[in-house]
């Protein structure tokens, strides 16, 4: 069985020293090994941005696509071969700005994939512009007077879109993050894991220390029941989204693959595609 080392490759990430994304990479590698995957059974599909490079830093199948479209590509991979484990990954700009439409519909569709967002509240690769996750008043190169748009709450949006698994974590907490990714991989449906992953170069406000001071860990609430949708929504609003842990999970709803009429357990990619003459005749009969 593969250990987390098998999910490492020899590519040196081009992230800045101290970037939160390193821990996310490590957590994915550990979680993949912990759930018993082999590298060839995993496909990591990523978007564009600093975090989008992650698919190239994990020893597995990886596709680094176009900005904002990791989710539809990942869903295509899963539909084509449901035997694979599929992780989609990218930043907050990728998933909540240019790709927000796909995020909401991927949540609704509920294919069995795990979506990990590295949320640093800023655009890093383009060198410091505002993100939908930036706080109001946040000054960046594109908002020199401070952002005048309200901050997007991906957790609330995910809840209202009918998400079946919502978690949030902090890249400093490797243990929790790994456990949540494992839970996401084990969840039979779409799992959203938003990870506070500080940008040490362009975001001088939402720093490691700032997160440590401001986040609430759900582990501190032993009575918290992640199957209670109302309670989850309340908790998100109560904490203004600054919470970590498994926030909501619906184990009842079947994943998309399991709702498609006639969809088999065997991956479509592994099935025969040759049509028989008999099958063809039946198709032709409708046109006579």
């Amino acid at each position: 069985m593969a250990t987390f080392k098998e999910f490492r490759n020899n590519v040196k990430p081009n992230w800045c020293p101290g970037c939160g994304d390193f821990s996310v990479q490590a957590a994915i590698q550990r979680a993949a090994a912990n759930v018993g995957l082999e590298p060839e059974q995993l496909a990591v599909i990523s978007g564009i941005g600093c975090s989008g490079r992650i698919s190239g830093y994990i020893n597995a199948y990886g596709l680094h696509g176009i900005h904002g479209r990791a989710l539809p590509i990942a869903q295509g991979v899963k539909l084509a071969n449901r035997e694979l484990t599929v992780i989609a990954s990218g930043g907050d700009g990728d998933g909540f700005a240019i790709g927000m439409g796909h995020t909401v519909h991927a949540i609704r569709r509920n294919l069995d994939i795990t979506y990990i967002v590295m949320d640093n509240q800023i655009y890093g690769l383009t060198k410091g512009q505002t993100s939908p996750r930036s706080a109001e008043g946040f000054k960046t190169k594109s908002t020199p007077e401070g952002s005048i748009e309200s901050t997007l709450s991906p957790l609330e949006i995910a809840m209202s879109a009918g998400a079946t698994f919502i978690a949030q974590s902090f890249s400093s907490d490797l243990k929790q993050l790994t456990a949540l990714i494992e839970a996401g991989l084990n969840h039979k449906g779409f799992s959203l894991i938003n990870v506070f992953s500080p940008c040490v170069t362009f975001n001088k406000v939402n720093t490691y220390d700032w997160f440590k001071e401001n986040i609430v860990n759900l582990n501190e609430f032993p009575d918290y029941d992640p199957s209670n949708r109302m309670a989850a929504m309340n908790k998100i609003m109560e904490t203004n989204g600054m919470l970590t842990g498994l926030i909501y999970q619906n184990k009842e709803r079947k994943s998309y693959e399991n709702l498609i009429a006639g969809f088999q357990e065997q991956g479509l990619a592994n099935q025969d595609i040759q049509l028989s003459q008999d099958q063809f005749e039946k198709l032709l009969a409708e046109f006579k």
Partner: protein
Amino acid sequence: MISQLSWKIGGQQGEGVESTDRIFSTALNRLGYYLYGYRHFSSRIKGGHTNNKIRISTHPIRAISDDLDILVAFDQESIDLNSHELRSGGVVVADAKFNPVLPEGVDAQLFAVPITKIAEELGTSLMKNMVASGASWALLGLPIEVFNKAVEEEFGRKGPAIVEKNVEAVKRGAEFVLEQAGGPLDAFKLDEADGKQKLFMIGNEAIGLGSVAAGCRLMSAYPITPASEIMEYLIKKLPKFGGTVVQTEDEIAAVTMAIGANYAGVRTMTASAGPGLSLMMEAIGLAGMTEQPLVIVNTQRGGPSTGLPTKQEQSDLNAMVYGTHGEIPKIVIAPASIEDCFYDMIEAFNLSEQYQVPVIVMTDLQLSLGKQSCEELDLSTVTINRGKLVRESELPELETHQLFKRYELTEDGVSPRVIPGDKHGLHHVTGVEHDETGRPSENAGNRLRMMDKRLNKLNGLQIRDAVRSDSPHDAADLLIIGMGSTGGTIDEARSRLAEEGVSSNHITIRQIHPFPTELVKAELNKAKKVIILENNATAQLAAQVKLYAGGADKIKSVLKYDGNPFLPSEVHQACKELN
């Protein structure tokens, strides 16, 4: 006895024009006639004039006719808008309810049939289309049993009582009109057909059918006119073969989902029209850069922007050939018949995997939606070719940190391809410039090698019938060049030209990109003058011909961009004027 005639039914959208046309043409198909249909409709569901025209013939036809023999009208508007097409001695069957009148100067026979009244007597005005079609069928003197059988199939699922009522409506309409006319009209007595039942379908259905035969098992698409019938066909069929259709949130999701599924090893398509194609452009570039197979059908309609969404046009050629940023290999093919729609899908899926490139299949609205007779389709000629897809068992073991050379530099530029899940096929895929294993690289030498590898893959590509040629003359007065649905119309114009002593050749360019330069050059050399016919305003096909094959001094363009297909008479007239 005549060998062909044209029938049209007109009314308000939602009034049963579609279903009447369906039953009428199904019955004709059963008798073995060749049919070619044209739908005139608006971008709305209820209301607004709509009409369907069918050309009926004892021999193969591939064009709408200039004129009209029989018009069935549910309202005065249908008469006012269409009676100018009626040939002298034509017939109008109209609902007596609105006191129909023929416009001045129209030399036709009017039968005012109490269509609504009869339908209401039988229980519901919904059946007025059956009364009307029964009446027009009776005038042709064709066997009623065949028509009733088609009625039975249309309404069978609603139960025998409904079938019986509709059959009765047909009978009452027929009886009424035959009494007025004194029997079937001699002038409309069609020669017997060969009795051999043909396939009868729209281009979009042939595309769907071809895709299933090609092994396509997934489709991701967003609804749009005139492409939606492809997804509607496939959602009914693909589940029978293990696959499915996903209606995505937009065309960007549609195309990227298709890219993901192709990457993971399943033949997957998407289909759209101009606006959707525009949205797909960035992703088409990703497929080109990462060498993923991808098949996109673009059913062209009137552009730009929302343009004329339900009308004929061929104006996306430049967008398909040049649309993406940067430079990628891409194939654009244009089916020119209903049979092509089927076989070209197999070709498209094969090409996309053999060359690992995006393939765009371009149709136009008339080809996609015009219902027509189709020759028997032969599955035994269908071969699925997956190119350099390597099976897992053939892969040599990888060492630690070694990656599979998914972008290996090879002589033909095409690299071996594996799919996720294969134990010894690990590699990376990125839209960033990359090396042979897919790892990002900005190295200048690598950049040149990879660009050349990708762009040279299609050198010398020639698809089946890349240029379909009917050029009997070594020195023709005229060469007419077209693409898509216009071929049948051009051929009808040519036979009229031949009667006037003008010799003409005709080629249909089916491989739009990469351009089949040598094949076209050879044809240009055989004609004194060249006319290029296309449904757009800026002569996009002519620009390609001139760019690659030359001949600018003798090429003239005939363009139509008012939303309607060319008529044979228009092509004939234009050729006479330009020759």
